[in-house]
């Protein structure tokens, strides 16, 4: 769900790159927030809450609220609304608090 035609804005995306979400390969633009690439691919559930395991997505999209914490390349608690996408990233849903390895 990318915007292709806009009356005012002109989007200049970066290079198209591949990354994985839960082991599945998808594409996004290099440098855009991981959350934007996931959303464009129709993925809205980013993690599950620690106690009640409720699905969570992003909320503020500017790194304030901590609703979008995911595991990226094995590192938990990454705010994917501001973390930039790079080729080959491994992105996984976070369960609860995430574990530091």
């Amino acid at each position: 769900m990318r915007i292709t035609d806009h009356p005012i804005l002109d989007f200049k995306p970066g290079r198209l790159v591949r990354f994985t979400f839960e082991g599945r390969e998808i594409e996004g633009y290099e440098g855009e927030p991981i959350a934007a690439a996931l959303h464009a691919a129709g993925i809205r559930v980013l993690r599950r809450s620690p106690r009640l395991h409720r699905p969570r997505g992003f909320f503020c999209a500017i790194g304030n609220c901590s609703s979008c914490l995911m595991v990226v390349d094995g590192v938990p608690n990454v705010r994917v609304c501001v973390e930039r996408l790079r080729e080959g990233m491994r992105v996984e849903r976070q369960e609860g608090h995430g574990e530091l390895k």
Partner: protein
Amino acid sequence: MKSVEIAVVGAGPAGLSATLAAAGQGASVALIERDEHLGGQLVKQTHKFFGSARQEAGTRGVVIARRLGQAVREQAGIDLRLATTVLGYYSDKVLYLEEPDRLAKLQAERAIFATGASERMLIFGNNDRPGVYGAGAVQTLMNVHGVMPGRRVLMIGAGNIGLIVSYQLLQAGVQVAAIVEAAPRIGGYLVHAAKVRRAGVPILTGHTVKEAVGEEAVEAAVIWRLDEQWRPVPGTEERVDCDVICLATGLSPLGELMWQAGCRMAYVPELGGHVPWHDDDLRTSHEDIYVAGDASGVEEASAAMVEGRIAGLAAARSLGHDRDVEEKLGEARRELAALRAGPTGEKIRRGLESLRQGGDGR
């Protein structure tokens, strides 16, 4: 440890203006911004701004951001630090910074906090479902990253933000099911309301959202009517087909750093919540700390820019810089008063009055 005279935290309209004003006085300035770009909230604002001509009314927010950002980049002597988050302020005038791969310290004689505001949540059933997004998030996703937030959006709040973002959604090719507003009347300017109405979007005043529907993510919303006492009326529930519920229900100043630094904070509903006490120079109860923009009270970009100038000039003056500083301060104060004159500034004037009555803060 590196040291500067003035550290500005946040590169929105307030922080950029503060930086330019202070550097213009000859002070050494560091501008610290957690994002990778300058402009703050302005980078996602595609509409023509309201406000007066001096504050660039009629210009789109994105253009104002570009202009201010360029002026900062061209001004010599500014230590610009992007992708850097300020984590704390300590008593020896030291700021702790999180850079992409390390922690750093910066000593600053004066700090200006221009950290902006964050979006407010609303209480309703399943308000944590993916698809319940803040209005700023929806704007960021579509206007900065070019991704549609969804197929069909239910907007909550008919203030200026709710109205403007609804219009921007339509421009991006997203349907807007309706705009729901708890108050009995529309809060935003009627020009904005007329635009979305003309496009066929109903504005339902005296209504609110009861719950989000959907197991994994939003698939619909249930709205209901409110009576004169703002109590929901059972039996008036209606289901609205949508995959996004967008909250445009207000902002709260981001004051954590000032709480932590020990500035005296006051709760002022008209200013959006907890704000640091401050005087006409935007100086807080902590004599080395100034505040500007939405962090000092949620208002508008036009006021944020003037406040930034005042804070930057006053902080520079407190360190002995003087390039017609009094004259420039006087001019900025008159501009700010003019912005807040008239009926639209009534709420802010009331808020500032009650903040001042909270004592001198020292």
